[in-house]
């Protein structure tokens, strides 16, 4: 995986460069003005927060099923990346929400689900660091990943239902008219750039985690030699 890191880094730089260029040259929105541009960061990071969770779910299944240490390493490497994307999603959404809805936050289904996803990511990292035995820590983390994978759809479903049954939705995201082509191209470019960025960050973290595990293994050996 180490060999891929360099090319992935350059690909990220290129893709983000092209994406940002398209975002900044795209026309401003008729109603939202320039604040629409934050959507080009917000939407891709929201997708990445979910995509990373999908990725760690698959890795966790492989880890538990095949007892693959490499899959466990990928789970550990990807969790902070997902945390970052979820945090960026909430922050950019909030910044956009203030001028658009007049509020930093609304207890909408998608916002609530994303917030729970962020807490879940933090919980995954906390659980691993709280357990001494690395094998048990890895296994517990993978089981928690699966619990979360089952919970997230139920959370989304229940909050949606709660909001629609209880009070009218504060805004409609999916009901907006189809996006113009001029706005769609930069959005696609940024989504692609974020996918490449996500892969790069996971590779980077995977290298770091692998190094740390090797170091820990060496430290465990040391007393027998000295």
């Amino acid at each position: 995986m180490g060999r891929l890191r360099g090319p992935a880094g350059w690909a990220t730089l290129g893709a983000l460069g092209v994406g940002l260029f398209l975002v900044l040259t795209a026309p401003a929105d008729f109603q939202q003005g320039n604040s629409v541009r934050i959507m080009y960061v917000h939407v891709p990071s929201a997708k990445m927060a979910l995509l990373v969770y999908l990725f760690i779910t698959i890795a966790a299944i492989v880890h538990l099923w095949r007892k693959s240490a490499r899959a466990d390493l990928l789970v550990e490497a990807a969790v902070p990346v997902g945390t970052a994307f979820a945090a960026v999603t909430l922050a950019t959404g909030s910044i956009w929400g203030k001028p658009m809805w007049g509020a930093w936050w609304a207890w909408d289904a998608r916002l609530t689900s994303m917030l729970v996803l962020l807490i879940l990511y933090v919980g995954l990292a906390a659980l691993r660091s709280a357990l001494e035995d690395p094998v048990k820590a890895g296994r517990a983390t993978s089981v928690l990943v699966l619990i979360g994978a089952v919970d997230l759809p139920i959370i989304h479903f229940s909050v949606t239902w709660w909001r629609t049954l209880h009070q009218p939705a504060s805004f409609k995201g999916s009901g907006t008219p189809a996006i113009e082509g001029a706005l769609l191209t930069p959005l696609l470019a940024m989504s692609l750039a974020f996918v490449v960025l996500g892969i790069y960050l996971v590779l980077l973290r995977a290298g770091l985690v692998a190094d740390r595990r090797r170091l820990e293994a060496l430290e465990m050996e040391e007393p027998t030699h000295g």
Partner: protein
Amino acid sequence: MLRAAWRIAWKDVVGDFRRRATLSSMLFFAIAVLVVFQAAFEPDRQEATRLLPGLLWVTVLFTSLVGLGRVFQAEEEDGALEGLLLSPMPRGVLFLGKWWGNLTLTILVELMLVPLLMVLFNVNLWQRMPLIYGILLLGSLGLTGLGVLLAALTQGARSRETLLALLLLPLMVPLLIAGVQATGGILNGGEAGPWLRLMIIFDVVYLALAPWAFGWLMEE
């Protein structure tokens, strides 16, 4: 097979009565939550009726953390978990035993909690009592099922009880919403049916997943 699960549950409940007294800790913790709530909001009778479903479920959720923090305490103290794991039964049965033990304690606390709420907040729930207990039972199945699994996950971790709360509370959001809405529906004449169905979905999903997940977790 199920006899073994009953034995484990029985041992936990009886052991609790004799020595560990989790039940009374849970009960007095619940009362403390009610006192805090009263001090913070000072609801009059009308407000108390409106806030009651939320108060009931928040108290149940927080109180469950006290019990769940101790699910594996006896095993940790005496190193008896290895013994249980060595016994010739599937790991899922062991989970069932621990789950039933915790469920029993939770139900006992809930049985006392509803009359306490009626007295302390001066609301009359007599006619709705069986329905409220029914909803509480439905919610407790999923709450304790997922809770015992999370207790097993965090067993042996540093600052285990904080971690347990951090993991349990967000995952319980669907059950909390459904429980509050269903209880509110019954008390204030709204719709409860869809919420009960959501609780059943939550229960079934987690109780199907938890014994397997427990097995993966305890594998050697």
